[in-house]
């Protein structure tokens, strides 16, 4: 079958000879993919930043499709169902799943305990092949996958597998109170969505920070927020302090993760020399520009080794840090309601649509931020 095939940093093949997936566990289903996306998280893999990303892996954790085969234990799903598949692989039975920490399942990733299984996200997240393919194996098919309602647009459905839930959870973990000033670092799909969702929680002011002008403009339009280019601010932290009467933001959200720009020291030690797990510039700014007693919500992804962050300021300012992979299944009913009521238009983030056969170009466009790309959908 046709699938994306990772060959090393910045090298990807659209490979027609990849093996078809098989049912390996009675709870599995095989899904024929109808749409899959490329995510900022995939870029960390593509850039070779995630340990144990083995050659020959197929990426892709944001996908929807049709069930074509089910294992003997599967009762809820049947052949022909159109499903959206949360990016977390979760058993639904372990103590973590019981607490709805579906991103932290204890039974889906042998290689690491810190994170649950994720489709197409290296062996550090379970060694599962992903959905940038014609077919994909979906474990625990009765737990995660959600039958797409008749009325729902397929583009909205695929955005419900990660982007909308992650952006929403970023805002939710911020514990936003009515009238709060919320600063979002990063104007990628996740940051833009987090800014949009901050309003749902009653934010009084929403500010987005990035350095890519077309993305800032997109954020202003899509999330009806303020947006500033940190390249034109001498010191983003000072700017944010000044614009909040020297108080600091009530809530800061890190929607950038380990490939942040903006600090030569962080970039050289983190992204070039790999002495730390990527550059923690945005997190640094978030901690320093939030108010005392404020909340920093992190959804940006960092590697497992270590990072330079001003933990002393976290102590001295009495900050609360909340972070996690998005727990997609937990949020779906609420978010589907938001889509139906027209509060949020997730598909509005999609700017590019390419055939799966052009997956190397699709990665390049998203990675190099070409052609005003925000979000790319691949069609097998």
């Amino acid at each position: 079958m046709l699938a994306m095939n990772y060959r090393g940093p910045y090298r990807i093949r659209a490979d027609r000879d990849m093996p078809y997936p098989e049912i390996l566990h009675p709870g599995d289903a095989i899904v024929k993919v109808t749409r899959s996306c490329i995510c900022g998280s995939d870029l960390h893999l593509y850039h070779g930043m995630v340990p144990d990303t083995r050659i020959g892996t197929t990426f892709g954790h944001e996908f929807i499709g049709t069930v074509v085969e089910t294992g003997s234990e599967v009762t809820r799903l049947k052949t022909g169902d159109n499903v959206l598949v949360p990016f977390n692989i979760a058993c639904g039975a372990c103590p973590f799943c019981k607490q709805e920490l579906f991103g932290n399942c204890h039974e889906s990733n042998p290689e690491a305990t810190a994170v649950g299984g994720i489709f197409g996200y290296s062996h550090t997240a379970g060694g599962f092949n992903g959905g940038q393919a014609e077919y994909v194996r979906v474990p625990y098919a009765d737990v995660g996958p959600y039958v797409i309602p008749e009325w729902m647009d397929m583009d909205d459905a695929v955005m419900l597998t990660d982007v909308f839930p992650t952006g929403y959870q970023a805002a939710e973990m911020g514990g936003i109170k009515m009238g709060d000033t919320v600063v979002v670092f990063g104007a990628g799909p996740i940051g833009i969505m987090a800014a949009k969702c901050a309003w749902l929680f009653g934010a009084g002011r929403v500010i987005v920070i990035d350095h890519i002008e077309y993305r800032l403009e997109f954020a202003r339009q899509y999330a009806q927020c303020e947006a500033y280019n940190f390249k034109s601010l001498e010191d983003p932290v000072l700017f944010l302090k000044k614009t909040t009467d020297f108080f600091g933001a009530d809530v800061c959200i890190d929607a950038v993760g380990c490939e942040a720009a903006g600090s030569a020291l962080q970039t050289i030690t983190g992204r070039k020399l790999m002495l730390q797990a990527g550059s923690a510039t945005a997190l640094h700014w978030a901690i320093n520009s939030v108010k005392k007693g404020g909340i920093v919500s992190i959804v940006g992804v960092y590697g497992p080794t270590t990072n330079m962050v001003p933990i002393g300021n976290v102590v001295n300012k009495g900050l609360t840090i909340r972070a996690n992979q998005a727990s997609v299944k937990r949020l779906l009913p609420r978010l589907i309601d938001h889509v139906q009521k027209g509060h949020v238009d997730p598909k509005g983030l999609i700017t590019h649509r390419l055939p799966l056969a052009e997956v190397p170009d699709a990665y390049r466009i998203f990675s190099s931020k070409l052609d005003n790309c925000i979000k790319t959908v691949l069609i097998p």
Partner: protein
Amino acid sequence: MENKELFGHIKGWGVDADPKNEPTYPMKKYTGDDHKRLNYDRPTLQPVTNEILHSNERPGVTAVFGTGQPPEGLSGAMRRYAFRYSEGSFSHWLPLLLADRVQMVEALVDDVKKGQIPDLIAEKGYKAEWKYNRAGVIRKGLMLAAVGALVILAVVQRNKRK
């Protein structure tokens, strides 16, 4: 001004505001089940049919796992070595990162053995770069050419001096 006037243009403003929702996720749904430790009904176990490395911070493999790309060759040996150390240790992650690079070379050798020379231009998506960032590609090309020329010049000079 009332919130309605201030934020009326933003669809859904405040619909999820809920002061009682604190402390929110990931704390919200605490059940106490954690104290039961691993004594829960585990799902059916996927049979192990090839080599699956597992973190030494757990007693064995999880109920499901991916089976692709089992450890092989030198990179495989490095990965096995890495898994002797816990996730809290640099000795776990750094060999894995290194193994990733080693495997890239192993894969390249395999490709060449099969007579399959990788099409780097296609793999790296340079077609897209050329389409949308031609100036950048040309700039990079010129820079590389300039650096190359300088190196050649330096070598020639040095040889002359000898």
